[in-house]
């Protein structure tokens, strides 16, 4: 694939912040929503990797830590985070929580979101447990918006159930571009991400990749533009009306 086809945050900036912001289309560097969900298969680590990339997109980490919560099923299916393989800035910041049940996971997520010393919270939850209904999801959304700590919930092997996440992604691995020196080796990871429901953004599909420390995205199939239907609500809290 041609590298010049990628749109980078740096290139987009001169085009006019205001026009872009009002275009309603998601782009890297915009800063994700406070509460996003990433649906992914449990057979690959793309969900967690894309969640990390999305959470770190446009975020100043400072001295803050990062909370990664997994329930038992997610832990068994996808394994634990491995410090040498983590992105460099996260290695010394990670705090891992192994929750036994989905209820414990939701509790840990909410406590993490309410902590002002956390940069963001990653949750990994397998399947569609009964505990994560719309009420629980909305509770997490409100807490995350109130305290300003982003929450990315990775749903492994889950159906797209009802949820109040502001952005919902479907992520799977995409073939990597070959590295520079060894054409047979796997290159830097890429993910095919479909934003299928978002508040304030039109849905779309991108190829994401971690370009150094910047998230880069390449739109692959432009979705038909329905105008600014969802724009008026913006990213404000649902509770505000």
């Amino acid at each position: 694939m041609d590298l010049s086809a990628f749109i980078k945050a740096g290139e987009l900036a001169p085009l006019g912040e205001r026009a872009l912001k009002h275009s309603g289309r998601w782009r890297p560097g915009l800063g994700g929503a406070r509460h996003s969900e990433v649906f992914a298969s449990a057979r690959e680590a793309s969900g967690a990797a894309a969640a990390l990339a999305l959470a770190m997109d446009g975020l100043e980490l400072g001295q803050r830590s990062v909370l990664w919560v997994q329930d038992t099923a997610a832990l068994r299916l996808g394994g634990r985070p491995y410090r040498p393989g983590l992105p460099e800035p996260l290695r010394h910041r990670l705090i891992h929580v192994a929750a036994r049940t989905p209820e414990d996971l939701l509790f840990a997520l909410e406590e993490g979101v309410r902590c002002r010393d956390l940069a963001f919270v990653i949750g990994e939850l397998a399947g569609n447990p009964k505990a994560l209904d719309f009420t629980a999801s909305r509770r997490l959304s409100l807490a995350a918006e109130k305290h300003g700590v982003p929450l990315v919930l990775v749903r492994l092997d889950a159906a797209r159930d009802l949820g109040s996440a502001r952005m919902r992604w479907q992520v799977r691995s995409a073939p990597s571009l070959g590295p520079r020196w060894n054409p047979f080796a796997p290159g830097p990871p890429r993910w095919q991400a479909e934003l299928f429901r978002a508040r304030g953004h039109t849905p779309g599909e991108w190829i994401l990749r971690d370009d150094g420390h910047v998230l880069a995205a390449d739109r692959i199939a432009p979705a038909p533009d329905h105008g600014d239907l969802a724009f008026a609500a913006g990213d404000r809290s649902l509770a505000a009306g």
Partner: protein
Amino acid sequence: MAIWLLRLAIDRWRLAEGCTAGEGADAEPWVLTAETAHGPRIEAANQAGLAAGARPGMRLADARALCPGLKVAPSDPAGDLAFLASLALWAQRWGPWSALDAPDALLVDVSAVGHLFGGETPLLADAQAAFAKRGLAARLAIAPTAGAAWALAHFGPGRAILANPPRDGEGDRAQRGGGGSPHAPPLEDENPLRQPCGLPPPRPGEDMLANLPVAALRLDDDVLTVLRRLGLKRLGQLHTIGRDALHRRFRSRSPEANPLLRLDQLLGRAPEPLLPVVATPDPLVQRRLMEPIRHRALLDRVLGDLAADMARELEGKAQGARRLELGLWRVDGEVIVRRLEFAAATRDPAHIARLFAGKLDDVDAGFGIELLRLRASWTEALPLAQADFEAAAEAHGTSLAECVDRLTVRLGERAVRRPVAYPSHIPERAQRWQPPLAPEPASQGQLAFHQRPLKLLDRAEAIAVLYATPDGFPQRFRWRGQVHEVARVEGPERIAPEWWREKSTVRLRDYYRIEDGEGRRYWIYRHGLVGDGRGGPPEWFLQGLCA
């Protein structure tokens, strides 16, 4: 030292009237009365009143019959008690501890302080002079025990000093003036053979006590009546009766009704703890202002600061304020005082500031206020309360330590952990888990020759592999029931076992980082080599999921 203020109420009344003894208003017959169910009753009378026939305890009507010109003022027992308490503090000039002996006496511990005044006699003279200077009639006595001092002050000769009796073999253990808690000395001398039925013989110094009336034992009136009817009028006469007989007759546990117990206390054989009076300064905070303030907004802010200071002060003492006095010192010398009383003890700064704000509307600042002082003149114990940390967490978020605490309390100690590097090249050993806020151990920098997977399975899972050569990488493999076609490979990265801690039969691992046709990336390894003599054909495992 016992101090008996024989005419405390009258002296106080006279001092309030501002006249010396026997002159002015005091020259006329005055009585202090208290209202009772049967009409006013005389509590105290001055010299002229006593001469006219008025006696304490008499009905006012009866006294009026004797002396029609009797003048009446209400008595003030609460004021008398407060005055006595302040006197007790004042009397600490003669000793480190003083105690109230309501209604009209004080006890001061003067153990080993006589030499500061040149002996005990000069001490008594000094105290007598000090009381006379204040216009208070007092009788003083010094004795080894509080009971003896009291008895001598009330019934003994003026300024009596009871010498410290030498105790056989144990030196000076008797208490003087009742300080501390006297121990009951061992009763070895009460040998039943030598003393078949009586009290121990009077010791030196007790003869002075022996002539005192039994009323010197601080007994209730009805007990005194019983003793009088028994014919026991002097303390010495109690020795003539057997101890057992007294014990049989007076079985009460309370000292006021038990002459035997009182006698023991008087002689120092039974302990008699006293409650000392301790001065407690009122909590007081103040702010001096560099620039006099004239505006209400600034005043409110300073008041808020003062209230916060006061709350901290009160919190340190575990007290709450019932009454607060705010003093505003103006530049031109005026002082404005505002008082505030609370229904219950409080130390909520916002509450205090809000209530005071309502009282400051009519304050005339004049040229400005330069000093504000807040004093809690009435405080009550208010236990420290836990702040509502749930609300604080809701408003400001929790700190990391609080968050970790909340998580560990519900999920357990081992559920919340942080990965740290460990010096080992075996992948699963290269990471260890420790409590999240523990300091990170020192570790060697990692050489970034190879990429590691984002996630590592707890236990490597066996995969079925189809390969071109047994030493090469696989073409496809089956993991969890699905076949993956390998599209890209990097490897092998050979990781040998740690021979210094593992058995010699442990096989090495050849790691491959692979990507399948759909772009999924994994970390797999071959366990052993063909023909390494450590088992059969090598097995394949999938250990990590790459990003």
